[in-house]
């Protein structure tokens, strides 16, 4: 039995048989991994709450043919605790987990940046320093950037000419100049565009000071951008509780 050890975030759990679960983890060194946790649904399970979604764990896994097997698990950060007690943070967090899962297509393909981004996002969400929807939108934009779909909120996404520009086009990749503007482009408010730029770069002072209207518009544009690149929307996004 070949064993390996890694740290990872539990993305999803699915029931298997009488008392087992299939755990999907995003690990630091092995990318997305699916493993069986035996007997985890029993109240006397030694894994207990360690293998619930949002938990950051140090795991030892036995290599399997299609699914690995969880041998040991130790908690590194119990992010599930603060998130399950706050519905807005819980729904935002599940959208983050689903995004991380969807953007790591290949199993066992290392995705260190995506992993670090997710851990940072969950830490921010659990810490409660910022509004959960802002943390979620910042995570979604940066996840897309890590995956190679970075939106442009300053220079024109079509020809690269410096901004600010007025129009936003999802297929072109962000703000566009009048010359590159395709039919169907939207014209978001300058405050929303400033907020999107702040979320992408991590300018939290700008993001925290934003008003409700621009936040809603920025969330809508982020969701449209994400749906375009993922080819279908996130299931959890429509359940996210927004202000």
């Amino acid at each position, binding site marked *: 039995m070949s064993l390996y050890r890694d740290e990872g975030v539990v993305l999803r759990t699915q029931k298997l048989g009488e008392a087992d679960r299939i755990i999907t983890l995003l690990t630091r060194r092995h990318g997305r991994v699916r493993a069986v946790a035996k007997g985890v649904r029993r109240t*006397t399970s030694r894994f*207990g709450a360690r293998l619930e979604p949002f938990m950051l764990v140090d795991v030892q896994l036995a290599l399997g043919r299609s699914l690995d097997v969880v041998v040991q698990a130790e908690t590194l950060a119990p992010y*599930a*605790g603060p998130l*399950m007690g706050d*519905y807005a943070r*819980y729904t935002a967090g*599940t959208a983050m987990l689903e995004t991380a899962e969807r953007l790591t297509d290949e199993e066992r393909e290392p995705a260190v940046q995506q992993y670090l981004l997710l851990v940072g996002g969950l830490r921010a969400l659990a810490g409660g320093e910022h509004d959960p929807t802002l943390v979620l939108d910042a995570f979604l934009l940066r996840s897309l950037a890590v995956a190679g779909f970075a939106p442009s909120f300053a220079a024109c996404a079509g020809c690269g000419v410096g901004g600010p520009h007025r129009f936003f086009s999802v297929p072109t990749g962000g703000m566009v100049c009048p010359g590159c503007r395709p039919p169907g482009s939207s014209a978001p408010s300058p405050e929303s565009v400033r907020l999107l730029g702040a979320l992408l770069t991590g300018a939290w002072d700008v993001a925290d000071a934003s008003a409700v209207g621009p936040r809603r518009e920025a969330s809508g544009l982020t969701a449209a951008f994400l749906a375009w690149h993922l080819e279908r929307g996130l299931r*959890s996004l429509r359940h996210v509780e927004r202000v």
Partner: protein
Amino acid sequence: MYEGVVQDLIDELGRLPGVGPKGAQRIAFYLLAADPTDVRRLADVLVLVKDKVRFCATCGNVAEEEHCRICRDPRRDPAVLCVVEEPKDVVAIERTREYRGRYHVLGGAISPIDGIGPDDLRVRELMTRLADGAVRELILATDPNLEGEATATYLARLVKPMGLRVTRLASGLPVGGDLEYADEVTLGRAFEGRRLLDA
């Protein structure tokens, strides 16, 4: 591949949860070799269960009439309502013989990642039941996992303006377990919910 009806039986059995192709084959050949009376009894029960069993119009539990046995029982306390995820949770709580109130079965837990939100559960029906003011205590007995806790949090917030006493089942160390194997979340909960020993 087997011929005709044998393969049809294996295919149908293979669609059941937890039954794989090998298991389906084993059950099919067991049924072929079994006494015809036993097989007919099984077939009759399968048909009967689909014809007779429905969900209780009040609580959502499985019932053979419009209302389930518990909702029809006048001895059950109508002032206490226990919210559970599935009908099998009702059976688990009934086995304790500790609870004499009524139930409300949600039909699952909120799980956005699986596309299940509050509108997909029997939350609206719960709010309708609470509206007449007869219920004084709401016990949230959803599973002690992430989805169950989030569902309990959502419901507690939703019913807060009604001024009910809202309680959650205690979590902590399982009877018969070892303390050294307890995870941090469970042990933390056990400390939070520690009680005074009146020796």
